[in-house]
């Protein structure tokens, strides 16, 4: 299913949980794991000086410096590297998001794994600044490869997944997310929960809605889910469909917790938005930061069709 896994890391503790999932994923699929690290942004055009992402110090990109960074990465992931041998390290200089996207493309990666932040940041400030890390935002926005975001310790290893939740909103991008979730569930042999949150409050601009109207909307959403998604599943019957009413990110989190989900899959932006123009959807951001399990953001069909 995955032959090439790209794990983008700063080598800091903020990426430890993502590292565990990346190695685990590569091991299960006997894939080649590319550990990718961006040394830093050149201080000005063609400069040999970069600001080190971990120390914040200016460094000259010499062969010695590159070797030192590579050695640091090997020390950081020593245990994982010992337990799985098919890996390589790639270093680059430049803007992290652009270099990650370039590496995913040039290495023909099947999936990109990364943490939600490049450094640990207090959750309070996420209310006021960009919620997710800037690198993650830009990568998820433009990646043609599914992006697996790991923000917490992963409860189970990939092959032991029992429940995958896919959040759908009937958009085109949602269809790719569904296909990724369905193929993963079929491959692992686990239950697929197809979930939609109907945000009726925003639909009716804060007006009180009667129970009858809510049930009508929920039935309508279920019919659409059957038409758009369930009809694609051939004879796979290990699934269920749920539609809840409420704020989408809150309901998805509640649902994922109730089902003890091992993976949440979502399209990375709201419906009917040009993928090139879309920013990381606020629903995905809020889910990524609070979910107890990894979240896969899928935006393009490229890698999903061939899975």
């Amino acid at each position, binding site marked *: 299913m995955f032959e090439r896994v790209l794990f983008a890391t700063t080598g800091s503790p903020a990426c430890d949980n993502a590292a565990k999932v990346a190695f685990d994923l590569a091991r299960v699929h006997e894939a080649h794991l590319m550990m990718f690290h961006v040394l830093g942004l050149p201080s000005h055009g063609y400069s040999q000086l970069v600001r080190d992402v971990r120390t914040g110090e200016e460094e000259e990109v010499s062969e010695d410096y590159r070797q030192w960074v590579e050695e640091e990465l090997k020390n950081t992931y020593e245990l994982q590297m010992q337990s799985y041998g098919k890996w390589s390290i790639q270093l680059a200089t430049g803007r992290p998001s652009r270099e990650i996207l370039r590496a995913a493309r040039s290495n023909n990666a099947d999936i990109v794994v990364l943490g939600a932040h490049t450094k640990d940041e*207090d*959750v*309070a*400030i996420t*209310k*006021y*600044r960009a919620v997710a890390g800037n690198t993650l935002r830009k990568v998820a926005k433009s990646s043609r490869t599914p992006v697996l975001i790991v923000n*917490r*310790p*992963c*409860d*189970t*290893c990939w092959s*032991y997944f029992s429940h995958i939740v896919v959040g759908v909103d009937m958009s085109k991008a949602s269809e790719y997310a569904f296909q990724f979730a369905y193929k993963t569930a079929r491959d692992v042999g686990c239950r697929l929960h197809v979930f939609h949150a109907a945000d009726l409050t925003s639909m009716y601009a804060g007006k009180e809605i009667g129970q009858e109207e809510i049930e009508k909307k929920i039935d309508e959403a279920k019919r659409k889910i059957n038409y758009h998604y369930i009809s694609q599943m051939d004879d796979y019957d290990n699934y269920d469909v749920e539609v809840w009413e*409420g*704020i989408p990110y*809150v309901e998805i*989190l*509640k649902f994922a*917790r109730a089902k003890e989900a091992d993976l949440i899959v979502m399209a990375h932006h709201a419906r009917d938005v040009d993928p090139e123009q879309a920013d990381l959807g606020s629903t995905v951001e809020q889910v990524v*930061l*609070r*979910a*107890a*399990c990894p979240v896969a953001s899928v935006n393009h069909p490229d890698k999903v069709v061939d899975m």
Partner: protein
Amino acid sequence: MGQEGLRLTAEGVLAKQAGEPLGADPLASLGSSLTLDQDCTLRSFFRCIEAYPDLIRLSPFSSTCLEEVARWPSSDCTTPRLRNLELMKRVELIGAPGERSLQIYCLFYGAGEEMDHDVKEFTYGELLDQPLSLGPLRHVVLGDTLDSLDFATSYTFFEVVDTIIWHLSFQGAPDKCTL
């Protein structure tokens, strides 16, 4: 005339400074300054939220938090890693280089003997009976957290509710890892 201050007791009762309990409508008092009795715990806070159901609507996560509280024992929910739970206000000057801005926000964290911890590292079973206190305002200039200044400050009732629920909405890390 300013709004009368409120006091939260260990039993979760919101009282006016004169002593009588607050009436049934807490929304009009969200802007009042709040003090906590010395024996207040996180459980006292949730008892207060339960007592005034209107407060649940302040955050989409309040009801999930209350469900979580109900799952745990009614006493001894503490951990030796924490001394108490504390709110803190932070004023942060950001920029130079970069766009200059000033952020004012509230934190809710666990104060340990040697270091502070994110509350998301703990289950409710380790937090509910921890003492709860209102900390100082910290002024951080241009990201230099080592050279910051602390000032005495006050908190509104809304700040306390909003901050605690916001931070607890990040709970949910699995506690049974690791294969």
